[in-house]
């Protein structure tokens, strides 16, 4: 029983990170139909921000928000310089642009800060555990899950109760008609990228908390998992992305706990196999495509 509870907590923690990444990917996709493969670079940017600020002895109470701001800022800049000029272009063009931006940033980082991984000096409390009887739970896992839930609630509130949030939901339905309401298209898109980048920054805090080493390619793995989660949920569906994130995290942890030791290195292969099988039966994902914000 003790083992099960600890694995559930692990699953919720890993799932939270995937859910945050998947939600960021889905928000931009739902509005622009753009699968942004440069999303991983928002995570990397947040990682380097934490590394350099921690190395400069900046208090962590400032580093964490800085990581989120870095993710949001990079997202907003990329929207302005890379994606806005291509708005309305073919989906394949935008997709290629996102790959190009991703590679460009990776290479720029390799040239500027070097390809060698850098260890982020996380605060010691992230490694401490909470003892509940015979159960030990890492504070980082609790923080990850609780913060993710709070942020999801905040985003839900924002999308339901603010004009820009409503406009984002409307734009996911019909972008042109949203502009006919007098709502500036650029505002909606920039806010979507800002939220997407901020979510990546938050995910980076928890992701690097578990594996505190950042390199120019660090963002790829969480991006891939987040993308898979978004596809499982139904690309474009925000509740689907969150659900897909938790499902993927849960599956990973369950496999890690139950597979024979020799097979745990192949968890990703099993996950991809399951994804393929699931998509054969539900090609649009669990929540279907283009339900977008319908049930937020």
């Amino acid at each position, binding site marked *: 029983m003790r083992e099960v509870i600890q694995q559930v907590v692990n699953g919720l923690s890993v799932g939270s990170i995937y859910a945050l990444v998947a939600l960021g990917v889905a928000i931009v996709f739902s509005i622009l139909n753009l699968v942004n493969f440069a999303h991983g670079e928002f995570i990397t940017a947040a990682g380097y921000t934490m590394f350099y600020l921690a190395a400069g002895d900046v208090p962590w109470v400032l580093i964490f928000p800085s990581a989120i701001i870095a993710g949001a800022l990079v997202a907003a800049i990329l929207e302005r310089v890379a994606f806005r000029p291509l708005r309305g272009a073919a989906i394949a063009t935008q997709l290629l642009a996102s790959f190009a931006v991703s590679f460009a940033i990776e290479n720029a980082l390799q040239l500027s800060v070097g390809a060698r991984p850098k260890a982020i000096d996380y605060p010691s409390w992230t490694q401490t555990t909470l003892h509940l009887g015979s159960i030990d739970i890492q504070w980082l896992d609790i923080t990850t899950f609780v913060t993710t839930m709070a942020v999801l609630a905040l985003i839900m509130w924002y999308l339901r109760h603010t004009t820009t949030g*409503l406009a984002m*939901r*409307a734009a996911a339905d019909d972008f*042109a*008609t949203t*502009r006919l*309401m007098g*709502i500036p*298209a650029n505002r909606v898109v920039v806010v979507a990228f800002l939220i997407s980048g901020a979510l990546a920054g938050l995910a980076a805090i928890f992701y690097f908390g578990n594996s505190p080493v950042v390199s120019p390619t660090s963002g790829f793995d969480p991006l891939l998992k987040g993308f898979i989660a978004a596809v499982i949920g139904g690309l474009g569906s925000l509740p689907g992305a969150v659900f897909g994130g938790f499902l993927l995290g849960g599956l990973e942890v369950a496999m890690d706990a139950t597979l024979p030791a020799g097979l745990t290195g192949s968890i990703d292969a099993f996950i991809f196999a399951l994804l393929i099988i699931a998509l054969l039966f539900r090609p649009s994902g669990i929540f279907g495509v283009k339900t*977008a914000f319908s049930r937020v």
Partner: protein
Amino acid sequence: MVEPSAASAEGEPEHLLELQGLSARYGSLVAIREVEMTVDAGEVVTLLGANGAGKSTTLGAIVGLVTKCGGKVRFEGRDISRLSTEAVVASGITLVPEGRRIFANLSVEDNLRLGGATLPAGEYAAARDEVVDLFPLVGNRSRTLAGLLSGGEQQQVAIARALMSRPKLLLLDEPSLGLAPVIVAAVFELIAQLKSRGITMLLVEQNVERAMEIADRAYVLSTGHITMAGDQLSVAEIEDTYLGLTSSRSGDDA
């Protein structure tokens, strides 16, 4: 930006909306050529034409959704040709698009909120009261998902949503399209009600008879050109124009 030629002697613009030689295209295809048209405050003007004549393109060009390739759009004497869609709406023109295009996944209330997004915060409640007074349905079904409403009800939501911004000019793109005859009658009753309240409208329709009953003046588009205009056009001659049986004319006082 106001040019003297667009203003009367008193300095007031002569027309609320004036299209001066407006041309627009989709990609390399020119869809409308040198369209000349005016709408005055308080008028209902209808723009008629067969499928593909360029009616919706004209409305799209006015609000900046379709690329203009010549001519000008003047609104209250000001050249708004180069404004973005958002800026055109903010200047006082709202389009009810073809096929209603309500936000199906949002509630009726949220559709109204988006319609009133450009209003100053203090004006929203009053605008909503006015709209609910005109369309009791949007008040009664405010929490219903708009996509669950019938076609006629959705058309009411679409018009109510457009009125939320308190437009000086309402553009209606084929409001009767795809609706059952009995619902079409109800929609035109609503438009008549709007007219009686002094709302200026440019109505694009294929239903010539209904449109002519309600409009003060009409323009007829054929393959991107205005071929007839006036306030005394008969339904028969307009329909002949659709079939290419009548030559172009600009009659009466238009």
